[in-house]
């Protein structure tokens, strides 16, 4: 693969990226803009939104604190998943300041009543995300393998897909994933960052680096979630 020199400051000597032979055998997931406005009161063009404490909203984790909404979309395109032989758990990791924690809502596949979302189920069971240090370490390794380093004061907070109680990592077989993805699965994801030790201080919005991958295959993708959606984005 031919290496493109980056113009980003601090990455001038980025080494070439070599992809493993089985790269295409992974669970392919692609980021995209969110498409379900109104969940948790977030408007259609908002991916990053800093809020002061406000009235409770059902499913909102940090309404009573200063918090930063982090919202994006993703798609599992139709795929054969021929490379999936064991059980795998999708993973998501995001780079946030060390003074903050980030917590997640379930995967929303549609708008429910009011500001609620309708959650993804796999084999009849609602799926959530659970914090996992290994996921954070995985993102650190994958990101640094591209020659990049996070800015000072940031770390990767990682999650694996979990049961509804957010206590146990859930892993899925190829057949389960095929049934779930079908002709393609499109969903919105909401996370909320807040101060690790609550402060009476607003959170300055920042661009969020996000990694989508899983705990077994070699597929991964990074993207940068902008504070403001660029004009012309579709």
């Amino acid at each position, binding site marked *: 693969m031919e290496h493109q020199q980056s113009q980003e400051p601090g990455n001038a000597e980025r080494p070439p990226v070599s992809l493993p032979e089985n790269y295409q055998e992974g669970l392919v997931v692609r980021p995209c803009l969110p498409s379900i406005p109104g969940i948790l009161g977030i408007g259609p063009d908002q991916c990053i939104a800093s809020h002061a404490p406000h009235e*409770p909203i059902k499913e909102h*984790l*940090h309404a*009573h*604190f200063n918090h930063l909404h982090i919202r994006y979309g993703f798609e599992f395109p139709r795929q054969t998943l021929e490379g999936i032989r064991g059980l795998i758990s999708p993973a998501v990791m995001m780079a946030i300041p*060390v003074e903050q*924690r980030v*917590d997640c809502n379930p995967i929303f596949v549609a708008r429910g009543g009011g500001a609620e979302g309708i959650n993804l189920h796999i084999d009849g069971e609602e799926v959530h995300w*659970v*914090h996992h*240090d290994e996921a*954070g*370490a995985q993102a*650190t390794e994958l*990101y*640094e393998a591209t020659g990049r*380093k*996070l*800015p*000072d*004061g*940031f*770390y*990767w907070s990682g999650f694996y897909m979990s049961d509804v*109680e*957010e*206590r146990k990592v859930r892993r899925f077989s190829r057949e389960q994933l095929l049934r779930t993805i079908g002709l393609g699965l499109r969903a919105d994801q909401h996370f909320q960052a807040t101060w*690790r*030790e*609550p*402060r*009476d201080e607003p959170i300055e919005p920042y661009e969020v680096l996000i990694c989508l991958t899983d705990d077994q295959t070699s597929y991964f993708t990074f993207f940068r979630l902008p504070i403001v959606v660029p004009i012309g984005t579709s």
Partner: protein
Amino acid sequence: MGERVPTDAALKTEWVVYVTVTASQSGPVADSVLLVAVSQDGNASARYLSWIVGYEDLDRASGAESGRWRLIEPATPYVEKVSWQPFGWGALEPVWTHARSSSRGESH
């Protein structure tokens, strides 16, 4: 629902309390978990141990301080007047509900 053995000699004990109802707008929210530090003179101050539904913060805190946490089952009602500290926990010994940043293998 639990107890933490304090290392600060000024503290008599620390209770882990699950909040069942939101009593006031500025107070702790329902379904949150508090750490109530009771001093030797009987005064108590409380702050969040976890403010979202779920046990992950408790698991992490007890895992980080093995042997200092005790589950109380069945849970017993707890109604006391305490000093509420939603921000600025400096008066209480910190409880690391997430791993310290230096132990994450992070890149900074």
